[in-house]
């Protein structure tokens, strides 16, 4: 295997004559030269997109397989192009950076090799060549891709398809148990609720009314409301009797038959018949 990449590059150290001006380079694939998006950030020089693009165009102008190109010749072509272009145009910085790097590479390749310097200039040159090969491969792949029979240009799908429509229909589900249980819940929730109060000794309002009116009639002075309660009233019955008697007193006061007196909230409540004072 004679063609170790490094050795081949070393063998290529002779400067190749440049047969044509790089300004008049033909583009290998015209198909690729399509409209550029206006937002492109790079500055195009005669349609080149960056230094790699320009380098590749120059490399192709050597009319050899990229594997065989002379890196030194390429460097010279590039430097000359940039020199000429710079006079006419304000050149984007990346072109100048590449020019500086290539100038360094050229001198390194021409000088006797310094084994201390890593990476070696041969390695740098090889890397550049590999990058150019990759860009070239993708450019050619892109050209072949867009040249295929493309839908809408070379082949066509149906002009007026009817279209497929899927309408989704809900298949409602419920079980008989759900139905019955739901009705049970509604019925339980809304049926009239009857409260049955367990047996409890109470004095009804009617009874209290009768009792208070009777007792108030025979007394003439202020009396504590408690004194109207039955003497034997105890516990819950006493509470009921007190509540009913109080309501009875209010009712009688409303009817104008009695008057009520209380010094302050929760103070003892006194009651006497109206007219009793007048009589007194």
């Amino acid at each position, binding site marked *: 295997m004679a063609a170790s990449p490094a050795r081949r590059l070393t063998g290529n150290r002779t400067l190749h004559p440049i047969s044509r001006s790089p300004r008049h380079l033909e583009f290998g694939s015209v198909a690729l030269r399509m409209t550029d998006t206006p937002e492109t950030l790079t500055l195009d020089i005669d349609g080149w997109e960056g230094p790699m693009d320009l380098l590749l165009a120059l490399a192709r102008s050597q009319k050899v397989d990229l594997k065989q190109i002379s890196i030194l010749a390429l460097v010279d072509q590039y430097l000359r192009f940039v020199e000429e272009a710079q006079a006419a145009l304000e050149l984007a910085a990346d072109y100048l950076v590449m020019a500086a790097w290539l100038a360094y590479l050229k001198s390194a390749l021409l000088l006797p090799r310094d084994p201390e310097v890593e990476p070696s200039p041969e390695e740098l040159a090889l890397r550049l060549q590999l990058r150019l090969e990759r860009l070239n491969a993708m450019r050619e792949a892109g050209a072949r891709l867009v040249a295929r029979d493309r839908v809408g240009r070379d082949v066509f799908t*149906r002009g007026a398809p009817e279209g497929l429509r*899927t309408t989704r229909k809900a298949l409602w589900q419920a079980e008989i148990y759900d*139905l019955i249980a739901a009705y049970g819940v509604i019925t339980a929730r809304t049926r009239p609720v009857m409260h049955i109060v367990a047996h409890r000794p109470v004095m009804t309002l009617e009874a209290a009314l009768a009792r208070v009116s009777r007792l108030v009639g025979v007394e003439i002075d202020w009396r504590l409301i408690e004194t109207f309660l039955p003497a034997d009233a105890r516990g819950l019955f006493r509470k009921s009797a007190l509540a009913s008697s109080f309501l009875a007193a209010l009712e009688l006061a409303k009817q104008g038959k009695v008057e009520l007196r209380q010094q302050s909230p929760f103070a003892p409540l006194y009651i006497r018949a109206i007219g009793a004072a007048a009589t007194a």
Partner: protein
Amino acid sequence: MTPPDATVRAVEAVLFASTEPMTADAIRNHLGGIDVRSALATLQADYAGRGIELVRRGERWHFQTAADMAHLLRRTHEEPRKLSRAGIETLAIIAYHEPATRAEIEAIRGVQISKGTLDVLMEAGWIRPAGRREVPGRPLLYATTAAFLAHFGLATRRDLPGLEDLKAAGLLDPVDLQFETMEVAKPYDED
């Protein structure tokens, strides 16, 4: 298929790609003046009985999906869905009280029902409008359908369990009462 000749293939491709039906003249002009009539006849025969057919409408030709395949273009896809709680309660009230107006259903449920709830029950095919009640406003009445009976496995509405049955099954017990029963029962379970 018999291998078609160049004209047949060209007419086939042109008609397929065209966005509208084309007259024989338009096709001929498009193909540079060659006669296309026999090609159209060949194509029509080629496609006879297929899922696609070449048809002539007036003076214009076009490909279309075979008429008996048209149902494939609009498919209905059925998805099982569970009825909401509002839906099942409303259905239960209609089933037990039918015919019932919306206001009556709401009175029994104690909650308003949305139009959507009744729509779902109608879509399911379980209730139907059943005339109007002759009161002011003539509200619509709802009743259950034969599909309702079929879905719930009932021969007649009378097969619905009555209030006594529901009570016996514990379905009329308020929820909190059931909870209490469970609470009481618990100590035994834990033994």
